[in-house]
């Protein structure tokens, strides 16, 4: 494993560059990069050694499009071999343009088609609650345009009504939804009974606080604002 030499935040552009061949431009364009780093570096209780442990925290990348930052963070944290990044999207690579959980160590779900992660996250959180694993977190990353899919709203509604405190949704908001969200994304979650917080999507301290400050008895929505797409 090469993780000792590629394990820092500052290494992420180089890791992304192994996939894209254009590290400076591509790394800056990764809207999820800082959220993913803060989650895996400081928030989630999961390591390569505990990746199959029933008590591990779960991270579900629902917005599977543009997974280079996700793969880079998994490589930096030792879940996947840095060398695998070079084979990105080749036929026999474990890493495609959308992640497949059966091929990527540390990936909790396969995604690509939008609007599946929150439903799976609600089910996982319900199962963990039924098993008495009340300290285990389930964090689902969605995009603001992904929220167009109605399936998300089925999950948002139920999680709020059931008070699934262990569930966190982090919505990367680059204002890419075609018809927008008047009043803001956070309002959609808050109306359904979630604790909703909006922070700068590049501000590590603000992201950490948003993920970790108490939100008693309610699921948590963190809206991470980043520069508009394009």
């Amino acid at each position, binding site marked *: 494993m090469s993780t000792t030499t590629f394990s820092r935040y500052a290494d992420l552009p180089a890791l992304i560059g192994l996939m894209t061949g254009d590290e400076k431009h591509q790394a800056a364009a990764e809207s999820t990069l800082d959220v993913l780093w803060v989650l895996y570096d400081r928030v989630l209780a999961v390591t390569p050694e505990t990746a199959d442990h*029933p008590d591990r925290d779960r991270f579900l990348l629902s917005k599977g499009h543009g997974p280079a930052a996700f793969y880079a963070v998994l490589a930096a944290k030792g879940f996947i071999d840095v060398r695998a990044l070079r084979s990105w999207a080749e036929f026999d690579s474990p890493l495609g343009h959308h992640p*497949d*959980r*059966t091929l990527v160590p540390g990936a*909790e*779900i*396969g995604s690509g*088609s939008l*609007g*599946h992660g*929150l*439903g*799976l*996250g*609600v*089910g*996982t*959180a*319900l*199962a*963990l*609650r*039924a*098993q008495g694993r009340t300290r285990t977190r389930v964090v689902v990353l969605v995009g603001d345009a992904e929220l167009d899919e*109605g*399936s998300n709203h*089925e*999950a948002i*509604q*139920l999680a709020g009504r059931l008070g699934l405190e262990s569930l966190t949704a982090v919505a990367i908001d680059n204002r890419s939804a075609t018809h927008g969200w008047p009043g803001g994304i956070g309002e959609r979650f808050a109306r359904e009974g979630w604790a909703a917080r909006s922070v700068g999507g590049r501000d590590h301290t603000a992201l950490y606080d948003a993920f970790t400050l108490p939100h008693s008895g309610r699921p948590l929505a963190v809206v991470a604002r980043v520069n508009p797409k394009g």
Partner: protein
Amino acid sequence: MTTAAPELPDVTAQPMRDTFVAAATAALDADPRTALVLADISADRFAEAAARHPDRVVNVGIREQLLIGVAGGMALAGMRPIAHTFAPFLVERPFEQVKLDLGHQEAGAVLVSSGGSYDYPGYGRTHMAPGDVALLDTLPGWTVHVPGHAAEVAPLLADALRGDGRVYLRLSERGNAAARPVGDGLVTVRAGSGRSSGVVVAVGPMLDRVLAATAGLDVTVAYAATVRPFDRAGLGRLVAAAGQADVLMVEPYLAGTSAHEVAAALSDRRHRQMSLGVTRDIEVRGYGTPADHDRAHGIDTAGIAAAARDFLLA
């Protein structure tokens, strides 16, 4: 419901949904790994189970995409979920969740539908799902059970819950007078002679009709309560013992759903096959009774008898 036309003598009322409720409730009581996900349908029947197991009986409301997503998420966390509603809302409406939240995730679940294909014709086309098995057939790895008697439901459910795979249990309120052995592929109900005209396979609730329709014909009648995986080897043996390599499949869902399985089973020999089931080429817009729809699709006893004679005695 409308005023009932007399039920066919070869169809027997079967309380499969009640049997399922009892069996699933017993499974919830016995195994903490078992979970039940509902979308309002049958929630009243599971009220006691929900009171005893509030964390493992989850009614998501009328949200069928979430019904399957929650089942997939529970399976990923190590539980054995049952998801249940009427067939159109279990398989057709959330089909991408079935494909991705279960299959693509390699997550297991037991999907239990009721009402197939047209148990409630008074509700019209919206509550019919004759394409459910054909749709699941586009996905790898599904086991599909189609019981023909209420007493076959509990052993099939128990077997499904013991495993980790993806299982579809298709229930109807109409079936056969007697329960048959389940779980071992094709079961010979009536053996034809060595000079017989071929093999007739009756799936689930079609058996008594097939037996009546083929009375007097020298054919082998075999029963299948499990259609996926299909018992290709068993069909091959039955056909080898018959006088003609001719197979008539009679299924309670879309006609020809298993035609490719029959073709694969007999690819090593010259053969003929015919498929009976729910008509593919028109949408029958009538209400009425299930018996009316059997007649419209040619899968009442008279329709099967006529088709069997045309095909097998040709």
